């Protein structure tokens, strides 16, 4: 699983990647920014965010100290956390590459069945 995200994680100013299931569970996370490594992402209820995103295929949110790129995939979302100097076009391109590869590898229908579910 993890190698799929290595390209994204190696881009300048990318701080981490998460994968959420359709119900808002954290299926995967890898933070390379030490400040985010201590954040307990599994303690957060991500469901309301995903509900509010209903119908959204791709999103890009700019906050003062963080940029969050989200990409819908197989009922869930990939989140890329980055700073404002990250090359967003490359992030987008690498997500384009990762998504079909994930689907091929796992056969499809719901990321949840292929990830070890976090508690």
């Amino acid at each position, binding site marked *: 699983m993890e190698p799929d995200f290595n390209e994204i994680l190696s881009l300048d100013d990318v701080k981490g990647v998460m994968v959420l299931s359709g119900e*808002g569970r954290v299926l995967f996370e890898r933070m390379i920014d030490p400040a985010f490594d201590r954040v307990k992402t599994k303690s957060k209820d991500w469901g309301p965010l995903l509900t509010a995103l*209903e119908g959204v295929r791709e999103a890009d949110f700019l906050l003062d100290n963080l940029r969050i790129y989200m990409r819908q995939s197989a009922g869930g979302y990939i989140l890329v956390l980055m700073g404002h100097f990250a090359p967003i076009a490359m992030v987008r391109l690498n997500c384009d590459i990762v998504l079909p590869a994930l689907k091929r590898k796992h056969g499809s229908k719901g990321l949840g069945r292929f990830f070890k579910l976090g508690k």
Partner: protein
Amino acid sequence: MIKNVLIVDDDQEMLLSLKEGLEKYDETFSVIIAGDGRVAMDKLRMNPVSLVVTDLEMPRMNGFSLLAHIMEHYPDIPVIIVTAYSTPQMEKQARSGGAVGYIEKPFMIEELARKIVSTLRKESEGGTLHGISSGTFLQLIEMEEKTCTIRVFDRKSDKKGVLFFRNGELLDARMNGISGVEAAYEVFSWEEVNLSIQNTCQKTDKIINRDLQGILLEAMRRKDEAGIDPEAVDELEEDLLSEPEALKKPEVESPINAMRNRLENELGQRSGVDDIYQDGNWDGLIRQVQAVGDFFSAGPFRVGYVDRRSGADLILIPGDPAPTVVSLHSRGPKDRILQILMDQETLS
């Protein structure tokens, strides 16, 4: 504008757990509950409801009867059916009866929440306006011969009403248990309202047979008789007697024009901007993004972009009383626009 969702089920345990489970979406909609179809009819009469979620098997009045009642009396209110005893025939019957959604029990609460949110979003597909006078805006609807359903929220009294327009003609109105011209008089007397516009009108019969100006004047006369702000009647009469061009544009356009000009200055005619407007329908998403920002100690949410798969791509800028939405052509330079607006928001 928080919308009301009426959930109807004779299983009290189910009803309460749904109400509790959907509480976390209270920034987008609030839940009203009813134990059967009869109670639901009363709730519909007394409350402005945007969506009904109903079980099928219930005593006294079942879901199919309730669906038929809603289609007859409240055709603008979408209905989602939930049932534990589903058959293909039942689903077919529900959909042909007018239901917009059909969910089999058991279901994940998030599944229902998403269906509710996506259905409610259609209610304001034509945009929203805040803090304007209902009379002047509704005259514009008449002039442009629009067909739409307009939901009106009076900021002073917290009352809500619905107006049905077809080709610019006011067909019907509904407000707190009253309908027809009496409801229109009440809604038209509200001075500072929020409006959401749906680009369809399910009503076909013309219940109101009076022109818009006559209704506006009568509404103000009644308000005058009630002893509230008599000067407003004179002001309205002056407005109505003047040329249509005198109709004031909603005040919200000023900062919007400033944003449009800034983008055109930076990007020229190739800015890709299709429209700029305020839309409270995105409040829920913006609050959720800010919550994520708070979780990561990332500071305020300044600007965002969403690609909805269908429809225009949108840039969202949080704001009060409602977020500003920049609608883009499919090939609009969204990253550049995000950067321009981010710089502007950070400086302001």
